[in-house]
């Protein structure tokens, strides 16, 4: 087991190296650099851009250097000092920005993950057990509708509904009156009132995939001889279902958790933009738009690394859950 983990960690090193290269390459792909973007956005507000100011900015950001020098500066900073560089736009160390936003992103992602499971599990089990019944169809449609509606649209509509019919303050995570308040139940309730919209939106987009996996896995297991054995033992259907096929079907399911996280983060980005949530998504998008390269690059790097680690974790989890993998490795 330990050897298995070590080997996987070893595999991560080249992957991460390539990821760092590609992260940096991606942010270099669009024409121009942060300065171009800054000038463009200044020009869009009618601002005159002085040559002096430009010269000062160019010197300040060191954008004139060749790409490989910039890359080296960045990657060596990360490796040697844990320094992800400075965000041009926010004038803050990238790491400050990253960690600050990650907490909330994780919170939303976790909630979403739970929500997805809560929805996808029963529907997946139900539609496998009652394959081709009307219940299966209804549950499947419900599970898939979330996937089918573009996230930004559903976010917008829900937001309008919250405003129009519930008179709820939209956007952000707190109503203005709770923004400054100390943590108490009312504030927590207020947070949940805001949180359910993104969680439901991002969550429903993911349920379809999980339902499909759960259903297919379970269908595979449901008619396996060991289920008949268990039934012949005298186990009740419910207990039997949960203890045997569902439990076995969970294993491939667990291996998808690692892949789910980046998908959540991506889905979260669009929804968070629409809902103005202080998560990583909008920050990343903004950094990409404004070509705030160290911020954007570090962000991509970090998210990719998390994905790689997530995959590793889910593999480890899978090994832990499934004796066949654990004991034959």
């Amino acid at each position, binding site marked *: 087991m330990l050897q298995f983990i070590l080997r996987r960690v070893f595999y991560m090193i080249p992957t991460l190296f390539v990821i760092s290269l590609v992260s940096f390459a991606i942010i270099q792909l669009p024409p121009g650099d942060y300065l171009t973007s800054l000038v463009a956005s200044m*020009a869009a507000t009618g601002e005159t851009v002085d040559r002096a100011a430009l010269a000062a900015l160019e010197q300040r950001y060191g954008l004139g250097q060749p790409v490989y020098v910039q890359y080296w500066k960045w990657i060596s900073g990360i490796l040697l000092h844990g320094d992800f560089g400075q965000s041009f736009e926010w004038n803050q160390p990238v790491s400050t920005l990253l960690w600050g936003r990650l907490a909330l992103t994780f919170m939303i992602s976790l909630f979403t993950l739970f929500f997805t499971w809560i929805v996808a599990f029963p529907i997946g089990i139900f539609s496998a057990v009652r394959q081709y019944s009307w219940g299966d169809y209804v549950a499947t449609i419900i599970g898939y509708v979330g996937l089918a509606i573009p996230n930004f649209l559903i976010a917008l509509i829900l937001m309008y509904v919250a405003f129009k019919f519930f008179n709820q303050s939209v956007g952000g995570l707190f109503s203005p009156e709770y923004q400054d308040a100390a943590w108490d139940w009312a504030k927590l309730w207020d947070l949940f009132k805001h949180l359910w919209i993104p969680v439901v939106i991002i969550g429903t987009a993911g349920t379809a995939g999980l339902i499909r996996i759960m259903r297919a896995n379970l269908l595979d297991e449901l008619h396996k001889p060991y289920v008949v054995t268990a039934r012949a033992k005298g186990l009740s259907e419910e207990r039997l279902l949960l203890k045997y096929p569902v439990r076995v079907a969970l294993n491939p399911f667990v291996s998808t958790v690692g892949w789910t996280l980046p998908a959540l983060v991506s889905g979260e980005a669009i929804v968070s933009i629409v809902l103005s949530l202080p998560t990583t998504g909008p920050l990343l998008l903004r950094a990409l738009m404004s070509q705030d390269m160290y911020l954007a690059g570090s962000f991509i790097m970090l998210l990719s690394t998390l994905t790689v680690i997530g995959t590793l974790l889910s593999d480890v989890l899978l090994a832990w859950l499934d004796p066949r993998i654990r004991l034959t490795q």
Partner: protein
Amino acid sequence: MQNQFYRLFSLMLVLSMVLSACGSAATPAAAPEAAESAPAAAEPAAAAPAAESAAPAQEAADSHESPMWTEMVAAGTLPPLDERLPKNPRVVEPLESIGQYGGTMRIPYGGSWSSRLYSFMGNENLVVWTPQWDDIIPNVAESWEVNEDSSEFVFHLREGMRWSDGELFTADDILFWYNDIASNTDINPVIPSWLIIAGEPVVVEKIDDYTVKFSFAAPYGLFLQRLATPDASSMLEYPEHYVKQFHGDYNTENLDELVEAASQPSWVELLQSKTGSRDNNGPGWTNLDLPVLYAWRVTEPPGGNSTRAVLERNPYYWKVDTEGNQLPYVDKLVWDFLDDPNVMMLRTLNGEVEFMNYYANSLQNKAVYFDAMVEGDFRFFDQVRDTANSLMLHLNLNTKNEVLREAFQNKDFRIALSYAINRQEVIDTVFVGQGIPYQGAPKPTSEYYNETLATQYTEYDVDQANQILDGIYPDKNADGIRLLPSGDPLQFDMILDATRFPDWVNVLELVQIYWKAVGVDMNIGGISGDLLEERRKANDYDATANFSDGGLATILNVGPFLSPLGRGSTYAPAWGAWYDLGDGAVEPQEPPDDVKRQHELYDMVKATADLDLQRQYMDEIIDIAIDRFWAIGISLDMGQYGVVKNNLHNVPLSMPESWNYPDPFPTNTSTYWLSQ
């Protein structure tokens, strides 16, 4: 306007001398009615409040400040009001009423944080615009003198005026900014161009603690105007006593430690991370320790991790209302960062926003606000934009494509394209019937309004367009597209920043139809702003749709429609670059003589302080522009709107909107107040 300004200005000189003799505060207070009326009226209007404010300032100090401070003063943690105010505070006459202290203004922002905050409250320059944008009035400087040929400017600062940390603001702060920041090549490689005339940078001298002199190598007639624009704001953003500790020339004791502690590469970066705002995209706003001169100071900085910024009143703010009450009225500003205009809109509709003037105020949205006015308890105000047109179509006369260049440089070709546009239909379709057919020209309310320039070739006349084009490119291909002499169809891309201005695409989609009808094939190239900027710098485009600032402040912004100079003149970027390198990107080309003449004339406008001469030169520039017919306009821009809550007072019903007039600051945002 210029005449008015000149007369008013001389009057102010006299006035300020009189008033400073009294030892009391007064400025020509800028009530909107007052400025509309004859200049003579300014004197009583200004004098009256000044006299009033002088008397109660001493005894009733308690009642003239926010209750927030009264307590602290009583507790001894804050000096009394008269010690905090300068001897001669700036007196601002509120638009409607004397306000009550207190309340929080919630203002949404999206995009660049500092730029919105800045235009709300940060433009505290030596001089400022009047609310109507028709004059320049004292601000940080209580008065000034200009020499005969407008090459020397002496500013008198307010004695006893303080930074927000209680330190005195003096001439040394300005000198520190000029000598140690603006002229320090480590920090700023080049001195800003608005400080350079005839190739020579300004010389700044300290006459005494409260007097500074700016001397130029040649006359600089537009200096005061420049001084009122955001360009000049950085001058007052470097409190010497605070910034010195980060400056290599001053701090020889513990600078290395500070640099080390902040893990910055050198003191330059350290200093830059603590100061600066718009001029160098600096983070001064986020530095809670940086003393400021603004009405509010940051107490909760914006940043990646916060979706809002909170500002609270500055105890040392140096302005009072006509009753001597220290401004601002509003305790707190809360700026919520809302990345999506829809959220901003919903919050506004819900009445959760006190003031909203951009980002979510498109014409299309107005109907929705209109329907929610009662429920949301808000009202509208008009924004009169500084634009000369709703959208300018710039055919690049300097394009690298030779065949197209020949076509575009042919004025008749441009005239034909202008005739081919059904402007009224565009107005009806895209602008809900608001506006009139218009070319790129000063607005009717501008003193430089010129009917010929504004309306020439605006008729919708397909026959005439075809007639002209038949004379130039008679042959057409099977699709009805005219053929160039090379045999290629007459085809070009019009690029624009489709991400920021999706509405422009609508106009172009119609124009595309009109032009196709006369055999000209225009493709719409909707690209990102960054790419547009890259291609603009490389002069790598055939045509573009662009802004046209200068419809009101024409004299500050002739590039977009009068003469190729500056970055707005994308119809002839290479000729523009010949005059002024701008950002130095586009390769300059020698322009024709009449363009050179325009450049010469504009230099003369800038140099002279003689308003009649300025007018005369400008008229000649306009005459050449009429003859040249640089670019094709669509319609007169009827402006935008803003939204304010009904309980927010002293917000004018109408205000200009421009980069040069950083709205709404000149309308005296410190006098806005909230009734409970």
